[in-house]
């Protein structure tokens, strides 16, 4: 079992006829994802990647009972696209765009909470249950990274995810579900929210968190462990350990402000609740082995 998606998830693609939309829809389909419909205003009746295209999400959902939405629209239209899918009752939405205005990121997050929905992104390459389904722009050709297996992975990064996941795979493991929550300062979904599903998933043995300085997502993970909501082994790698405070290096959210959010603090907190924190990507594999060995 993967969490969130598998071959049976009925995926609708918003912005399916765009260049990026049609390219990645084809890849998603090739990876086993069940693409049931697409939406592009004004193009109802067309076909794209074999999927029927509708004017609106309502029409598509009515005809195809979609239960997940993949959003390929430019950053300034993402809020509306997410609201449209929420309005039609869709409760899993993935949005990749880098550049969503901050106040709209916040509205997306607030709407996700109010609707009890999962909105993954933006500024991510999405979500994959290797061998089953993919929602996003994760290419299937890198098998040494996205090999099926029993480790859940959550990440705020792109390239670093390849770096760390390759170490996980090199250590003999594979991936059950990988969730890129994205590098925006206000992501639609946060690490800790997925821990209960990983906890319940009998095909996930442990979870790897690829975090970074700034924000409080890693702290929330520590809290979930402390409160007993997550009991499986958890290994984390955090980038930005030596980053100078107050300097924004990379992701807008990756900055130490108000004396908070340093990798040191996050490490101390995670280790205090029994999680393992790798200092280097390479250590993730050995820490995973140690954690799972200890458990078994």
């Amino acid at each position, binding site marked *: 079992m993967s969490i969130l998606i598998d071959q049976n998830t009925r995926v609708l693609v918003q912005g399916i006829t765009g260049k990026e939309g049609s390219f990645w829809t084809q890849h998603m389909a090739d990876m086993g994802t069940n693409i049931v419909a697409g939406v592009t205003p004004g193009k109802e009746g067309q076909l794209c990647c074999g999927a029927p295209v509708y004017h609106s999400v309502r029409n598509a959902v009515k005809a195809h009972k979609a239960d997940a939405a993949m959003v390929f629209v430019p*950053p300034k239209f993402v809020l509306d696209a997410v609201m449209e899918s929420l309005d039609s009752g869709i409760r899993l939405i993935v949005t990749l765009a880098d550049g969503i205005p901050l106040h709209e990121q916040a509205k997306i997050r607030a709407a996700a909470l109010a609707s009890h929905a999962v909105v993954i992104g933006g500024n991510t390459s999405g979500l994959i249950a290797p061998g089953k389904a993919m929602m996003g722009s994760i290419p299937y050709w890198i098998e040494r990274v996205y090999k099926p297996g029993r480790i859940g992975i959550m990440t705020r990064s792109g390239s670093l995810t390849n770096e760390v996941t390759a170490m996980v795979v090199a250590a003999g493991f594979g991936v059950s579900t990988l969730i890129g929550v994205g590098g925006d300062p206000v992501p639609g979904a946060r690490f800790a929210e997925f821990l209960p599903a990983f906890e319940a998933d009998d095909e996930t043995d442990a979870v790897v968190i690829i975090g970074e300085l700034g924000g409080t997502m890693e702290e929330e993970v520590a809290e979930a462990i402390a409160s007993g909501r997550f009991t499986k082994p958890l290994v984390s790698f955090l980038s930005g350990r*030596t980053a100078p405070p107050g*300097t924004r290096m990379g992701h807008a959210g990756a900055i130490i402000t108000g004396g908070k959010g340093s990798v040191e603090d996050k490490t101390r907190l995670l280790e205090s609740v029994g999680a393992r924190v790798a200092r280097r990507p390479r250590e993730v594999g050995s820490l995973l082995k140690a954690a799972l060995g200890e458990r078994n």
Partner: protein
Amino acid sequence: MKLFEYQAKEVFADAGIPVPKSVLITGAGETAAAVGFVGLPCMLKCQVLSGGRGKAGLVKLAKTQAEAEVLAANYFAGVPSLHAVLVEEAVAIERELYLALTMDAPSGRAVLMGCAEGGVEIEQVAAKTPEKIVRETIDLDRGLQPFQISDFVYRLGLRDDALKQVGKLCGALYRAFRSMDAELIEINPLFLTKSGTAVAGDGKLSIDDNSMFRHAAYEKGRPYYASDMEFEAAKEGIPYIEFDGDISLMCAGAGLANTVYDLVNYEGGKVANYLEFGGPNYMKAGTAMRLCLANKPKVILIVTFGTIARADVMAEGITKAVQELKPDCPIVACLRGTGEERVDEIFAPIGLKRLSDTEEAVRKAVAIASGRERA
């Protein structure tokens, strides 16, 4: 985009937030006229974006016109790339508060923060006595509601007239926060004057970069950057930060770049510049390498692990850049991901060998920079 104090105060004034009388001068010669307008004593405030201006001596009081003129002359002569000084009336202060608005990620709400002690470093208050910071979170659809303002200012310890004035100001500050697509808007200190009014003593405002298309009036010119090269990089859309080390990074993606930065430090190396060569910039090898070379590094360290950002395309760009720019320092290149199998062949003309392990690449770069190893 961080605005200068004088710009933040223009936004405040438009929103109905009282600000001191002031004149912006761009040369010492304008000081006398400015002092004539704002009166004495007055403050001279260097318009720079770095924090801690007070400690750095970049904000000073002048009691006489002569004092003001000397101060201004010293500032313009001595502060690197200073473009303007704000000459501002010195307000008679009864007490100072702290007020700020930012976004709260977990809730997706705005958060209004206040502290009854202003002028302090709020980070230190937050760390040492967090209970002194008063918070109110705001649903963006509903906006800042009157009852929230009333409770917030009461918790700040304000009463009667001060409560009403600061309350009204909070409403204006929130409207400015929203209309400016602000990441952060801060008044520190907020003066309560002896005449009983609330006046913004300082002003910080940073507009969300993703929202700049709605704020086209603000052009991010040279004064907004710490160096010429950072300005050049920004024009190219390349995330780039200068440090004082000797290893120039060209790394794909923020997370991996930060990781390499950490690993370089672990190995005892020092970074000359952070540079993101991933995402939308993976075809800009030439520009990226030129930005690195400007720092005269001892080595350029390239680390990528791309999927959409293809390794072979990056290798082609690097090869071309080396051929054109003829860098006089060695290059260490660790390229993985889509097309990696073609990289060695592409690198052949420039004699570069692809590494495939990040830590190995970092160790090699540090060894070169320290002189322990030759490329």
